[in-house]
Protein backbone atom coordinates (compact mmCIF):
# COMPACT_ATOMS: atom_id res chain seq x y z
CA UNK A 1 0.00 0.00 0.00
CA UNK A 2 2.89 2.36 0.86
CA UNK A 3 4.59 1.35 -2.40
CA UNK A 4 1.38 2.12 -4.26
CA UNK A 5 1.26 5.60 -2.66
CA UNK A 6 4.85 6.45 -3.57
CA UNK A 7 5.28 4.72 -6.93
CA UNK A 8 1.76 5.26 -8.35
CA UNK A 9 2.23 2.80 -11.24
CA UNK A 10 5.39 4.61 -12.33
CA UNK A 11 3.80 8.09 -12.25
CA UNK A 12 4.97 8.79 -8.68
CA UNK A 13 8.00 10.79 -9.78
CA UNK A 14 5.78 13.21 -11.75
CA UNK A 15 3.02 13.46 -9.15
CA UNK A 16 5.38 13.94 -6.18
CA UNK A 17 7.57 16.45 -8.00
CA UNK A 18 4.48 18.53 -8.94
CA UNK A 19 3.17 18.48 -5.35
CA UNK A 20 6.70 19.03 -3.96
CA UNK A 21 7.25 22.06 -6.20
CA UNK A 22 3.91 23.53 -5.10
CA UNK A 23 4.65 23.06 -1.39
CA UNK A 24 8.17 24.49 -1.91
CA UNK A 25 6.65 27.60 -3.56
CA UNK A 26 4.11 27.95 -0.73
CA UNK A 27 6.75 27.75 2.02
CA UNK A 28 9.16 30.11 0.18
CA UNK A 29 6.43 32.67 -0.56
CA UNK A 30 5.19 32.56 3.05
CA UNK A 31 8.70 32.98 4.53
CA UNK A 32 9.66 35.80 2.11
CA UNK A 33 6.41 37.68 2.81
CA UNK A 34 6.75 37.20 6.58
CA UNK A 35 10.35 38.48 6.43
CA UNK A 36 9.24 41.51 4.39
CA UNK A 37 6.46 42.33 6.88
CA UNK A 38 8.73 41.94 9.93
CA UNK A 39 11.43 44.10 8.29
CA UNK A 40 8.93 46.92 7.61
CA UNK A 41 7.55 46.68 11.17
CA UNK A 42 11.08 46.80 12.65
CA UNK A 43 11.97 49.81 10.46
CA UNK A 44 8.83 51.60 11.65
CA UNK A 45 9.37 50.82 15.33
CA UNK A 46 13.04 51.87 15.16
CA UNK A 47 12.10 55.19 13.53
CA UNK A 48 9.28 55.69 16.05
CA UNK A 49 11.67 55.12 18.99
CA UNK A 50 14.13 57.65 17.54
CA UNK A 51 11.56 60.48 17.38
CA UNK A 52 11.73 63.39 19.85
CA UNK A 53 9.35 62.99 22.83
CA UNK A 54 6.89 65.62 21.55
CA UNK A 55 6.59 63.86 18.19
CA UNK A 56 6.18 60.47 19.91
CA UNK A 57 3.22 61.86 21.87
CA UNK A 58 1.76 63.21 18.62
CA UNK A 59 2.32 59.90 16.80
CA UNK A 60 0.73 58.00 19.69
CA UNK A 61 -2.55 59.79 19.05
CA UNK A 62 -2.90 57.68 15.89
CA UNK A 63 -4.15 54.22 16.91
CA UNK A 64 -2.59 52.60 13.85
CA UNK A 65 0.94 53.48 15.03
CA UNK A 66 0.36 51.72 18.37
CA UNK A 67 -1.10 48.72 16.55
CA UNK A 68 2.02 48.39 14.34
CA UNK A 69 4.35 48.56 17.37
CA UNK A 70 2.30 46.04 19.39
CA UNK A 71 2.45 43.61 16.47
CA UNK A 72 6.20 43.95 15.88
CA UNK A 73 7.83 40.69 17.01
CA UNK A 74 10.93 40.69 19.28
CA UNK A 75 11.43 44.41 19.35
CA UNK A 76 12.66 46.22 22.45
CA UNK A 77 13.03 49.96 22.81
Amino acid at each position, binding site marked *: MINQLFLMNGYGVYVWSAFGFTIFCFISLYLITKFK*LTREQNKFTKKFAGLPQAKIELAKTQ*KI*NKEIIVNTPNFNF
Partner: protein
Amino acid sequence: MLKNFNPNKAFFLTTKILKTLFFIFIIILIIGLTESLWISPEDYKQSHAVRIMYVHVPAAWISLGIFTFIGILSLFNFIFKNKNFSLIAKSLSTSGFVFCIIALVTGSIWGYPTWGTWWVWDARITSMLLLSIFYLMYILSWKVFEKNINQEKISSIIAIIGMINVPIIKFSVDWWNTLHQNATVKIFSKSSIHPSMMLPLLIMTVAFALFSLIIFIMEYRAEVVKLKNKGLDRL
Protein backbone atom coordinates in the same frame (compact mmCIF):
# COMPACT_ATOMS: atom_id res chain seq x y z
CA MET B 1 -18.73 52.85 0.29
CA LEU B 2 -15.23 53.82 -0.83
CA LYS B 3 -14.58 55.37 2.59
CA ASN B 4 -14.71 51.87 4.08
CA PHE B 5 -11.70 50.88 1.97
CA ASN B 6 -9.45 52.43 4.56
CA PRO B 7 -5.91 51.00 5.08
CA ASN B 8 -6.05 51.80 8.83
CA LYS B 9 -9.34 49.96 9.31
CA ALA B 10 -8.07 47.03 7.22
CA PHE B 11 -4.89 46.84 9.33
CA PHE B 12 -6.90 46.51 12.57
CA LEU B 13 -9.25 43.94 11.06
CA THR B 14 -6.50 41.74 9.63
CA THR B 15 -4.53 41.57 12.92
CA LYS B 16 -7.22 39.37 14.37
CA ILE B 17 -8.04 37.14 11.42
CA LEU B 18 -4.56 36.22 10.16
CA LYS B 19 -3.84 33.44 12.67
CA THR B 20 -7.35 31.97 12.35
CA LEU B 21 -7.06 31.95 8.55
CA PHE B 22 -3.69 30.19 8.74
CA PHE B 23 -5.12 27.52 11.06
CA ILE B 24 -8.10 26.92 8.72
CA PHE B 25 -5.76 26.83 5.70
CA ILE B 26 -3.54 24.12 7.27
CA ILE B 27 -6.57 21.92 8.08
CA ILE B 28 -8.10 22.31 4.60
CA LEU B 29 -4.71 21.69 2.94
CA ILE B 30 -4.22 18.44 4.91
CA ILE B 31 -7.72 17.25 3.94
CA GLY B 32 -7.10 18.30 0.32
CA LEU B 33 -3.74 16.51 0.11
CA THR B 34 -5.19 13.33 1.65
CA GLU B 35 -8.10 13.41 -0.80
CA SER B 36 -6.00 14.18 -3.87
CA LEU B 37 -3.02 11.88 -3.19
CA TRP B 38 -4.76 8.96 -1.53
CA ILE B 39 -8.55 8.78 -1.56
CA SER B 40 -9.43 10.00 -5.08
CA PRO B 41 -9.43 7.33 -7.81
CA GLU B 42 -6.91 7.06 -10.64
CA ASP B 43 -8.03 7.96 -14.15
CA TYR B 44 -8.82 5.14 -16.60
CA LYS B 45 -6.59 6.74 -19.26
CA GLN B 46 -4.00 8.83 -17.39
CA SER B 47 -3.72 6.55 -14.33
CA HIS B 48 -2.17 8.33 -11.28
CA ALA B 49 -0.77 11.19 -13.41
CA VAL B 50 -4.24 12.76 -13.15
CA ARG B 51 -3.43 13.69 -9.52
CA ILE B 52 -1.27 16.55 -10.81
CA MET B 53 -4.59 18.18 -11.78
CA TYR B 54 -5.28 18.87 -8.08
CA VAL B 55 -2.42 21.39 -7.91
CA HIS B 56 -2.28 22.49 -11.56
CA VAL B 57 -5.93 23.51 -12.05
CA PRO B 58 -6.47 25.43 -8.76
CA ALA B 59 -3.18 27.31 -9.32
CA ALA B 60 -4.26 28.28 -12.86
CA TRP B 61 -7.76 29.34 -11.71
CA ILE B 62 -6.42 31.48 -8.88
CA SER B 63 -3.68 33.17 -10.92
CA LEU B 64 -6.30 34.05 -13.56
CA GLY B 65 -8.77 35.24 -10.92
CA ILE B 66 -6.16 37.40 -9.19
CA PHE B 67 -5.07 39.03 -12.46
CA THR B 68 -8.69 39.80 -13.37
CA PHE B 69 -9.14 41.39 -9.94
CA ILE B 70 -5.89 43.40 -10.34
CA GLY B 71 -7.15 44.63 -13.74
CA ILE B 72 -10.53 45.69 -12.30
CA LEU B 73 -8.86 47.44 -9.35
CA SER B 74 -6.50 49.26 -11.74
CA LEU B 75 -9.48 50.42 -13.78
CA PHE B 76 -11.21 51.61 -10.57
CA ASN B 77 -8.00 53.41 -9.60
CA PHE B 78 -8.17 55.40 -12.84
CA ILE B 79 -11.87 56.20 -12.36
CA PHE B 80 -12.10 56.90 -8.61
CA LYS B 81 -8.47 58.02 -7.97
CA ASN B 82 -8.43 55.99 -4.75
CA LYS B 83 -4.87 55.04 -3.76
CA ASN B 84 -6.09 52.05 -1.78
CA PHE B 85 -7.13 50.23 -4.98
CA SER B 86 -3.57 50.22 -6.27
CA LEU B 87 -2.34 49.19 -2.80
CA ILE B 88 -4.66 46.16 -2.84
CA ALA B 89 -3.70 45.31 -6.44
CA LYS B 90 0.02 45.55 -5.64
CA SER B 91 -0.39 43.29 -2.58
CA LEU B 92 -2.18 40.66 -4.69
CA SER B 93 0.39 40.52 -7.49
CA THR B 94 3.11 38.41 -5.82
CA SER B 95 0.84 35.50 -4.94
CA GLY B 96 -0.81 35.70 -8.39
CA PHE B 97 2.60 35.46 -10.05
CA VAL B 98 3.66 32.49 -7.91
CA PHE B 99 0.39 30.66 -8.69
CA CYS B 100 0.96 31.33 -12.40
CA ILE B 101 4.46 29.79 -12.16
CA ILE B 102 3.04 26.79 -10.24
CA ALA B 103 0.43 26.29 -13.00
CA LEU B 104 3.10 26.44 -15.74
CA VAL B 105 5.60 24.13 -13.99
CA THR B 106 3.06 21.53 -12.83
CA GLY B 107 1.44 21.67 -16.28
CA SER B 108 4.80 20.93 -17.82
CA ILE B 109 5.37 18.01 -15.42
CA TRP B 110 1.88 16.69 -16.26
CA GLY B 111 2.52 17.15 -19.98
CA TYR B 112 5.47 14.76 -20.13
CA PRO B 113 3.71 11.50 -19.11
CA THR B 114 0.47 12.55 -20.88
CA TRP B 115 1.61 14.13 -24.17
CA GLY B 116 5.22 12.92 -24.26
CA THR B 117 6.63 16.47 -24.15
CA TRP B 118 7.45 19.00 -21.41
CA TRP B 119 6.42 22.01 -23.49
CA VAL B 120 4.42 22.79 -26.59
CA TRP B 121 3.66 26.22 -28.06
CA ASP B 122 -0.09 25.69 -28.00
CA ALA B 123 -2.58 28.56 -27.51
CA ARG B 124 -3.49 27.80 -23.88
CA ILE B 125 0.07 27.27 -22.64
CA THR B 126 1.50 30.22 -24.58
CA SER B 127 -1.22 32.59 -23.36
CA MET B 128 -0.58 31.38 -19.81
CA LEU B 129 3.14 32.12 -20.28
CA LEU B 130 2.11 35.59 -21.49
CA LEU B 131 0.11 36.03 -18.27
CA SER B 132 3.25 35.30 -16.20
CA ILE B 133 5.11 37.94 -18.28
CA PHE B 134 2.33 40.47 -17.57
CA TYR B 135 2.56 39.61 -13.86
CA LEU B 136 6.34 40.11 -13.97
CA MET B 137 6.01 43.46 -15.78
CA TYR B 138 3.39 44.57 -13.26
CA ILE B 139 5.60 43.66 -10.26
CA LEU B 140 8.70 45.23 -11.85
CA SER B 141 6.84 48.46 -12.67
CA TRP B 142 6.46 49.05 -8.90
CA LYS B 143 10.17 48.51 -8.35
CA VAL B 144 11.71 50.18 -11.43
CA PHE B 145 9.88 53.52 -11.46
CA GLU B 146 10.71 55.82 -8.57
CA LYS B 147 7.87 58.33 -8.36
CA ASN B 148 4.74 56.97 -6.74
CA ILE B 149 2.43 58.54 -9.36
CA ASN B 150 4.41 56.95 -12.22
CA GLN B 151 4.41 53.56 -10.50
CA GLU B 152 0.62 53.66 -10.07
CA LYS B 153 -0.10 54.82 -13.61
CA ILE B 154 2.29 52.45 -15.39
CA SER B 155 1.36 49.39 -13.32
CA SER B 156 -2.36 50.13 -13.87
CA ILE B 157 -1.84 50.42 -17.65
CA ILE B 158 0.04 47.07 -17.68
CA ALA B 159 -2.78 45.40 -15.71
CA ILE B 160 -5.51 46.82 -17.97
CA ILE B 161 -3.68 45.75 -21.16
CA GLY B 162 -3.00 42.34 -19.57
CA MET B 163 -6.75 41.91 -18.98
CA ILE B 164 -7.15 41.36 -22.75
CA ASN B 165 -5.19 38.13 -22.30
CA VAL B 166 -7.61 36.72 -19.67
CA PRO B 167 -10.51 35.79 -22.04
CA ILE B 168 -7.91 34.55 -24.56
CA ILE B 169 -6.61 32.08 -21.95
CA LYS B 170 -10.15 31.00 -21.02
CA PHE B 171 -11.42 30.44 -24.57
CA SER B 172 -8.13 29.44 -26.25
CA VAL B 173 -9.09 25.75 -26.08
CA ASP B 174 -12.39 26.49 -27.86
CA TRP B 175 -11.08 28.99 -30.44
CA TRP B 176 -8.02 27.01 -31.55
CA ASN B 177 -7.17 23.37 -31.99
CA THR B 178 -4.94 22.80 -28.95
CA LEU B 179 -3.13 19.89 -27.35
CA HIS B 180 -4.48 21.14 -24.03
CA GLN B 181 -7.84 19.56 -23.22
CA ASN B 182 -11.13 21.50 -23.15
CA ALA B 183 -12.67 22.69 -19.87
CA THR B 184 -14.11 19.82 -17.84
CA VAL B 185 -15.42 22.00 -15.00
CA LYS B 186 -18.17 24.36 -16.17
CA ILE B 187 -20.23 26.85 -14.18
CA PHE B 188 -23.20 27.28 -16.54
CA SER B 189 -23.47 23.76 -17.93
CA LYS B 190 -22.93 20.19 -16.71
CA SER B 191 -19.31 19.42 -15.81
CA SER B 192 -17.80 16.30 -17.35
CA ILE B 193 -15.59 15.57 -14.32
CA HIS B 194 -16.62 12.75 -11.95
CA PRO B 195 -17.75 13.87 -8.44
CA SER B 196 -15.01 11.72 -6.84
CA MET B 197 -12.44 13.93 -8.62
CA MET B 198 -14.43 17.14 -8.32
CA LEU B 199 -14.38 17.02 -4.49
CA PRO B 200 -10.56 17.05 -4.02
CA LEU B 201 -10.30 19.65 -6.80
CA LEU B 202 -12.69 21.97 -4.94
CA ILE B 203 -11.00 21.36 -1.55
CA MET B 204 -7.57 22.16 -3.03
CA THR B 205 -9.01 25.28 -4.72
CA VAL B 206 -10.34 26.49 -1.36
CA ALA B 207 -6.93 25.78 0.26
CA PHE B 208 -5.08 27.68 -2.51
CA ALA B 209 -7.53 30.60 -2.30
CA LEU B 210 -7.02 30.78 1.47
CA PHE B 211 -3.25 30.75 1.02
CA SER B 212 -3.40 33.59 -1.50
CA LEU B 213 -5.64 35.52 0.95
CA ILE B 214 -3.07 35.02 3.76
CA ILE B 215 -0.21 36.22 1.54
CA PHE B 216 -2.33 39.16 0.35
CA ILE B 217 -3.06 40.23 3.96
CA MET B 218 0.63 40.01 4.92
CA GLU B 219 1.70 41.97 1.81
CA TYR B 220 -1.02 44.56 2.40
CA ARG B 221 0.03 45.02 6.04
CA ALA B 222 3.66 45.49 4.93
CA GLU B 223 2.50 48.18 2.46
CA VAL B 224 0.45 49.96 5.15
CA VAL B 225 3.43 49.94 7.56
CA LYS B 226 5.61 51.34 4.74
CA LEU B 227 3.08 54.17 4.24
CA LYS B 228 2.93 54.91 7.98
CA ASN B 229 6.74 54.91 8.07
CA LYS B 230 6.71 57.72 5.50
CA GLY B 231 4.02 59.43 7.61
CA LEU B 232 6.42 59.60 10.58
CA ASP B 233 8.74 61.78 8.49
CA ARG B 234 5.95 64.31 8.01
CA LEU B 235 5.20 64.72 11.75
